[in-house]
């Protein structure tokens, strides 16, 4: 039985039957893991929404539009991850991440520093989704993460360009080692669910 067809199945994992598929969801650890990971992803996406909402109020010019647009994207990402999170779905942002972001926002002296914070967070979110791709077992969840990662990468590049950052050094600084797996950037660590627990 393919119990991991996607959000609907996971979202209703208390039920035994989803559509034409009979599920034994409660006993399947992979589904539970996917649901928990999706909830984590939703929580950090909501933290990004909060960051942009707070930042937009302190921005001027085109940066306001960007902040508003990207906040909409992150809200949609959170909603969609929540569809996979089932009973674990979250309605509030990741508390520890939001607190860390808020500290930096409070310390930010100007628009540039707020854009830089957004640039860093977008890169970290992209890295986080990259990391989660290796942990999700559901093809639907993998596919969802894969549909979001490029967009958050685009956000980062746009913000970095507004900041006047260097293309090769800052925006797309990846090095590829064909035998070693996907490209990485040493400074853009992914967000660790253990460090930023849902509800923590």
């Amino acid at each position, binding site marked *: 039985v393919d119990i991991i067809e996607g959000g609907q199945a996971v979202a209703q994992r208390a039920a035994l039957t989803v559509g034409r598929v009979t599920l034994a969801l409660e006993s399947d650890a992979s589904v539970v893991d996917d649901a928990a990971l999706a909830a984590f992803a939703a929580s950090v996406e909501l933290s990004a929404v909060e960051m942009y909402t707070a930042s937009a109020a302190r921005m001027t010019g085109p940066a306001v*539009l960007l902040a*508003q647009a990207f906040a909409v994207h992150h809200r949609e990402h959170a909603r969609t991850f929540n569809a996979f999170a089932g009973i674990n779905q979250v309605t509030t942002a990741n508390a520890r991440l939001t607190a860390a972001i808020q500290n930096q926002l409070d310390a930010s002296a100007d628009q540039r520093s707020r854009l830089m914070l957004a640039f860093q967070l977008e890169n970290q979110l992209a890295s986080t989704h990259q990391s989660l791709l290796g942990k999700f077992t559901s093809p639907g969840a993998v596919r969802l993460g894969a549909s979001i990662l490029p967009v958050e*990468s685009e956000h980062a590049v746009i913000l970095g360009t*507004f900041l006047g950052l260097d293309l090769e050094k800052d925006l797309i600084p990846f090095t*590829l080692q064909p035998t070693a797996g996907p*490209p990485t950037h040493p400074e853009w660590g992914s967000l660790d669910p253990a460090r930023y627990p849902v509800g923590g």
Partner: protein
Amino acid sequence: MRPDHSKIDPDQWAEALTGLRDGLGRLLGAPDGRPAEDRADLIVDNLSRRRFLGVGGLAVVSAAVLAACTTSKSKPPRGGTSPSTTDVETSTTIAVDPDVAILRLASSLEHAVIAVYQSASGLELVTNKKLVDATTYFSSQHADHAGLFQGLTSQRGGQPFTDPNQAILESLQPRLAALATQADVVELLYDVESVAAATYLSVVGTFTDNKLDAVTTSVAGIEGRHFAVLGLALSGLPKPTTGIAPRTGSLPFAASGFQTPDGAVPPGTGV
């Protein structure tokens, strides 16, 4: 040389943002209103449709003809719906490792993208130094990607595909032949990067070795970054690019907030 962000007049920015604002107006006004469950279904349904690839460990590969991005007028809107012109398909059935078939398509696509960059570069239409540097850099990254996919093909006992995908190049030939300005070149590269990212998303979830999902997505992320840089140049952000009139139809990000497989190169094309 880095642009001096502090010296850009906010009013000038606002003017340059006309196109972006049009796109954002649609986004902010109606973020499609689709329930998250429906969006999840949409994503998963796309995956399910592609399940035909894996049949008993074999792949049924269509020798397809690429119609996507034949002309700039027929290009699929990113995050929107594909035009019917992408639906050309069919024929030979061959048995291959499904992962190898996808990896060969990926490296052939990367080589085709490199060929497009090289052809465009040879015309010397791009005069903006930053764009010249950027496209040269992007081309080198595509070479890295091709090498990555070729190495993965070899690891799985397959024969790496080391040539540009001729079906893709033939489909792009009319646009290559019509290039006349710097903006034409940037728009073509923008579309090609979009197709590459869409293609990688289209195969995620179909690999028998799910480690390849992460690898492929990481490459899609880089194509997305290329797409954003080229989209910024076309949109005139953060300030207009010399020689390119800011336009409304080339946003530097997926308007829907999600990468979609729209415009993807169909499985089996040209390999």
